[in-house]
């Protein structure tokens, strides 16, 4: 019954939604990538000589390291179970 979207309108809607979602998920994406990068890579900047601008490849290098791993997710199980139990206790006591 109602009018349908043209191709251009569909592109507009999807790209606007993509931008909207990108804004909403940006910190999580950054946090996830940070969780995979080794500490030395995390606290390093692209090596740009003084007076020169950062290139696209320099920028992209911050997202990738040869030593990327899920080690942080394995390590966290040393402390997380205890915190998880505490959180669950608080949750069940607070539940109305």
């Amino acid at each position: 019954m109602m009018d349908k979207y043209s191709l251009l309108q569909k592109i507009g809607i999807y790209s606007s939604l993509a931008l909207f979602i990108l804004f909403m998920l940006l910190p999580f994406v950054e946090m996830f990538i940070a969780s995979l990068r080794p500490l030395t890579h995390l606290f390093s900047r692209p090596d740009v000589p003084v007076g020169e601008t950062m290139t696209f490849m320099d920028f992209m290098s911050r997202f990738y390291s040869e030593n990327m791993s899920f080690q942080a997710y394995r390590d966290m199980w040393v402390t997380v179970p205890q915190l998880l139990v505490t959180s669950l206790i608080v949750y069940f006591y607070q539940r109305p």
Partner: protein
Amino acid sequence: MSNLIQKLKPKTKAQTTTLFAWALIAPAALVMFWIVVWPLYETFRLSFTNSNLGTLMGGAEYIGWENYEKAIGGRKFPSIVTRTFYWMFLSVGLKIVLGLIGASLLASNIRARGLFRALVMPPWIVPIAIGCFGWLWLYNGHFGLISNFIEMVGITDGPFSFLAYKQSAFYSAVVTDVWIGTPMVTLFFLAAIQGVPKDLYEAAYVDGASRWYRFRRITLPQIMPTIVSMALLSAIWTFNSFEIIWILTEGGPRGGTTTLIIDTFKTAIFSYKFGAGATRAVLVVLILGAFSILYLTVLNRLNKRYGYSGVQK
């Protein structure tokens, strides 16, 4: 004594019912008194004393309106109040505009809209502290994504620490607050849009109304009560917003992000001036009280105009 008991004794069935009802709500009323009225009274009482670290063991004196005179006449107070209102209006305005755009997009008849709707939720679901730490990392001058990106596109010629300068720190905090508040506003608007009767759109479509016209003349008026409710509620929450600013900047740099709530905390807890801090807390209560009255008045008028269903009478 027995006369008094005789006088208080219920004489009719209605009186017995009333007394029984009061007896039932008495425990809850007592708890409410203990956790709401008493702290409010104490804050109000403290605001008229010179209570500080030195008078903790006793000896705080009544000093009348001195705390209020000092707070309102203080050098920094006007700028803090202005900043608080600017923070509130800017943040709420952005949340409403973004929420409206987001809700309109999510309400459109497209594929995978369920997935898009789910992807909007995370900032609202995760604890505020976690979201703020994510942004803290993004705003970092040397290792942050945003700083690196604007350096790459040539906006800056080196690392730029967003939280190191008054202006940029303030607007960074606004962006984080908008990020946290927008999902809820979007979902409320989406629910309101979905509640608009489809016949109105179909009738307008048959009459040849364009999409923009239908949005302006049908959607907006129909969801107006929700927009006003969300704007006023969001204004109260944003005015009270503490943890976002505290985690990002602690009110700095050089007071650039200090709002009334942050100033109250700093005065009462960091400077140990409990009396002066309580004065600021009372001022916040008064401002928010005025806002609540405004909220209820506007909502009442809107409900009278549009009815509870949102359909204009």
